[in-house]
């Protein structure tokens, strides 16, 4: 059988720097018809370059210096753009990460789809477009066909892209992180669709993703890339069950799995940083971070060796790993010190509300029509005890960032009562005194914007010390750096010289510099690569136990939140839906929304089972939030008018879980099963 895709010894170099930089180094892979091949890697691994090379759609500075790419037996290297054009679309199609930038904003969806059927008459082409939209399970295809791209939701846009890619029945489909930009409940629906289409059409697929969970759900075989190098390749089961390369082990170990908590499992983070492509280690690219590194790993580059009929690994010690003679896994973080829970309250939030007034047009102003406002946070009550971590999960638009910003005083329009260690906090930060400021600090989401690019790390760290603790000593700056495991010479560096993970460490050090009693963390790991994530989570754990700090940890990732927290709050449209002790979060009864969230997470275990709970539609606009229960428009357990008309009550079950729902907890418990089942790791 002719493979749908066969890549041999492909090397791609970029020529934009002082010298050529290798982005993909002698990579070979093969995809049989009907097979889904996962391509996993972190940033800088070369996975996107590889995908673009297969499309022959590399940016101008990139050059394929050697190798061959054959799609359905046809060699693509050396083809002129004129010869490539008929191949794109009909032979290879791609679904990109960001659908909005791939769709033409000035044309209606229907027009963009029917453009592909030049041979057909206009009305036939239009019917064909509608047919395609039906194929990707769009409920109201006629309306969507009449819409412009910005008028439909992100999940819908991605479906249109999928429809477009499949319209010509390509031999090879490339999916480049197709669901990375979507919320988890939407992602689940799109992934379902992709899975169904794959199964029905048997299209060979190259699925590029940084998420092992998604790959575990999809791929038949997978290839792991690290720093331009193919490090391991094999069937999904082999790689997930018995990874042979230390990097694959590290990747699998560094992500907290759904249901795990810091009390039971310590994450094994891959220490160090991903090497930049300009500065690759000459022998084994993983050697600087490898726990089982030996001399030869630093001297000569290991060859890709066959470890079984369909399996290859680029490591000198894979046989020892397979025989169980060495443990290629990273050492786990030491378990945190046991701390008695202190009953003292660190933070108490009562009826917190954040509104953002929308600007009025001149006509509205003249008519004196009332200002519309977005209610980002609505009637939230929370308590965090001293030394405890409270996790907040929510999708985009759930108000989680607004909540954190309101607590630290960066939102002028916040209402309600916030008490920190028993003292009421003034709403606005300018009315708070030094004492109060030093007790409450925050770590922001984007590490690249967290540090002033014009100040050295030392300067950034010395300001809170001077201002909030009256300390002017370089010694203390060095101690702070040491606390976040960075060497002291980093004090003289500028943020541009740091990796994202290192920047986030500095931001964490800066937040802890004031010796705060409470630190708010707004998605501190979501923009980091998974191998770096774990080390930040371990760091937070350690700092917390060392200082007895309370944390408010905010994230869209329920696995991470469940892992790090003692209590978890689930936010939807600015309101809390559920507040659960983390040990009970993953067991029924669940709030119907939590149930859907837990069902939406791609599990990191190919043998795991998961209930299928899917939500209809998208999150409603917070300009006009639904009446009654805010979740009623999408709730799979909707019980009738009561959900539309009345605000649900807070119910508490015997484990201390609190659920904001009209359905009695006993009924929920009876109707709901365990949403997912996954084997525990040791």
């Amino acid at each position, binding site marked *: 059988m002719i493979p749908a895709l066969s890549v041999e010894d492909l090397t791609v170099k970029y020529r934009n720097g002082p010298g050529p930089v290798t982005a993909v180094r002698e990579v070979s892979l093969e995809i049989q018809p009907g097979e889904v091949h996962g391509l996993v890697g972190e940033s800088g691994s070369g996975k996107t370059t590889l995908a673009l090379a297969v499309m022959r759609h590399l940016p101008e500075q990139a050059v394929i210096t050697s190798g061959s790419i054959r799609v359905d037996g046809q060699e693509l290297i050396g083809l002129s753009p004129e010869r490539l054009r008929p191949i794109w679309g009909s032979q290879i199609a791609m679904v990109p990460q960001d659908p909005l930038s791939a769709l033409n904003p000035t044309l209606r969806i229907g027009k963009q789809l029917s453009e592909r059927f030049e041979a057909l008459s206009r009305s036939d082409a239009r019917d064909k477009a509608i047919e395609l939209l039906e194929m990707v399970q769009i409920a109201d295809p006629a309306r969507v066909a009449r819409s412009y791209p910005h008028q439909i939701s992100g999940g819908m846009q991605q479906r249109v892209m999928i429809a477009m890619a499949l319209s010509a029945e390509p031999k090879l489909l490339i999916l480049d992180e197709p669901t990375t930009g979507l919320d988890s409940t939407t992602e689940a629906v799109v992934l379902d669709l992709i899975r169904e289409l794959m199964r029905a059409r048997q299209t060979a697929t190259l699925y590029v993703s940084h998420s092992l969970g998604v790959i575990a759900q999809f791929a038949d075989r997978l290839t792991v890339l690290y720093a331009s190098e193919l490090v391991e390749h094999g069937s999904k089961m082999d790689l997930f069950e018995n990874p042979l390369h230390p990097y694959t082990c590290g990747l699998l170990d560094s992500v907290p799995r759904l249901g795990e908590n810091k009390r039971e499992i310590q994450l094994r983070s891959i220490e160090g940083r991903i090497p930049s492509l300009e500065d690759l280690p000459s022998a084994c690219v993983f050697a600087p971070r490898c726990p089982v590194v030996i001399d030869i790993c630093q001297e000569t580059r290991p060859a890709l060796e066959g470890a079984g009929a369909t399996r290859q690994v680029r490591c000198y010690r894979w046989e020892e790993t397979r025989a169980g003679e060495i443990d290629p896994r990273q050492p786990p973080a030491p378990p945190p010190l046991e701390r008695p829970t202190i009953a003292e309250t660190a933070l108490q939030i009562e009826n917190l509300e954040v509104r953002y007034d929308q600007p009025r047009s001149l006509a509205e102003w003249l008519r004196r029509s009332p200002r519309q406002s977005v209610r980002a946070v609505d009637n939230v009550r929370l308590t965090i005890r001293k030394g405890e971590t409270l996790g907040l999960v929510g999708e985009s638009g759930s108000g989680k960032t607004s909540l954190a910003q309101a607590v630290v005083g960066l939102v002028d329009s916040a209402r309600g009562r916030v008490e920190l260690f028993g003292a009421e906090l003034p709403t606005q930060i300018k009315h708070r005194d030094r004492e109060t400021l030093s007790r409450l600090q925050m770590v*922001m989401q984007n590490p690249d914007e967290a540090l*002033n690019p014009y100040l050295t790390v030392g300067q950034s760290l010395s300001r809170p010390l001077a201002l909030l603790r009256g300390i002017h000593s370089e010694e203390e700056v060095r101690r702070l750096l040491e606390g976040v495991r960075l060497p002291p010479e980093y004090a003289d560096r500028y943020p541009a*010289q740091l990796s994202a993970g290192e920047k986030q460490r500095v931001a964490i050090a*800066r937040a802890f510099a004031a010796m705060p009693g409470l630190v708010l963390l707004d998605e501190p790991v979501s923009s980091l690569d998974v191998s770096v994530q774990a080390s930040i989570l371990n760091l937070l754990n350690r700092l917390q136990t060392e200082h007895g700090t309370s944390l408010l940890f905010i994230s869209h990732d329920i696995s991470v939140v469940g892992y790090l927290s003692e209590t978890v709050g689930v936010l939807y449209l600015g309101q809390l839906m559920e507040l659960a002790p983390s040990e009970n979060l993953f067991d029924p009864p669940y709030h119907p929304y939590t149930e859907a969230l837990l069902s939406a997470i791609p599990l990191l275990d190919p043998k795991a089972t998961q209930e299928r709970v899917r939500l209809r539609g998208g999150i409603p606009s917070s300009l006009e939030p639904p009446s009654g229960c805010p979740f009623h428009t999408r709730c799979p357990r909707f019980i009738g008018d009561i959900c539309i008309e009345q605000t649900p009550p807070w119910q508490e079950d015997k484990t201390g879980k609190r659920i904001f729902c009209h359905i009695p907890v006993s009924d929920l418990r009876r109707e709901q099963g365990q949403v997912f089942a996954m084997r525990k790791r040791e």
Partner: protein
Amino acid sequence: MTKESTTAGVTPARGWRPFTVLTRLFGRPASAAGTSIVLIFLLMALIGPLIAPYGVNEQIPSETRQAPSPDHWFGTDHLGRDVFSRVLFGARDILLLAGLGTFLAVLAGTAIGLLSGYRGGTFDEALMRVFDSLLAIPALLLALLLLGVVGPARNALLIVIVFVYTPIVARVARSVVLSVKSKGFVQAARMRGESETWIIFREILPSAFPTLTVEGALRFSYAIFLIAALGFLGIGVQPPNPNWGLMVAEAREHVFQTPWALWMPALAISVLVIGVNLMADGLRRVLRVPGA
């Protein structure tokens, strides 16, 4: 200790300093050319009167309307004045006025833009609308209007440049503030109780500096144009002071007898403007975040 320390081979970078910027500017042909042109004109302005072969208004009746020659590099005009000397003398005025005017406009515009953008609110809104309406009037028209009121004088010219360019610089500075003030490091500064002055000048201003430098350079080239244009219209720098615009205007009537008297000052204007623009373009590429 993590293995991150082992990759610590990077030398600590300094912030960008004038010398570093200059070296980098000379690293690219186009910006090297632009910078050289600007430096040569600056040199002309500084020592021009010392090297000028003739006086600025020195008329040599025997040598009127001479074509360029080793005696008169740029020739002489209809009154027998040495064009090269006049161009040399003219550089001082135009560079001083345009430079000082731009500098003051950048200073005022930056202060207004930073403060207004950072505070926001009704005051910011009102001020920006006023600036918008000022920007709607063409710079030359506004200059004519102002000079009509205060009368043609050098100080008036300076005021005109400051007045015309302050709103533009303020808008640019404000746009940078708006994009920076919601960033994490500014929020962190507020969370540790930094004063407004510190936040504006230490946290935000450095990020605005590259943009403002480039904007300043561009404004400088526009100011050169404006002064030349006003001189040409006869309401800029007044005689007997030499002025490139005025020289062009005077030579216009004799363009068939002494084309060089028109071309040379015109060439000086365009070469200087092109030089400044090339340098501004170079600055845009060169001013990077420290350590990058």
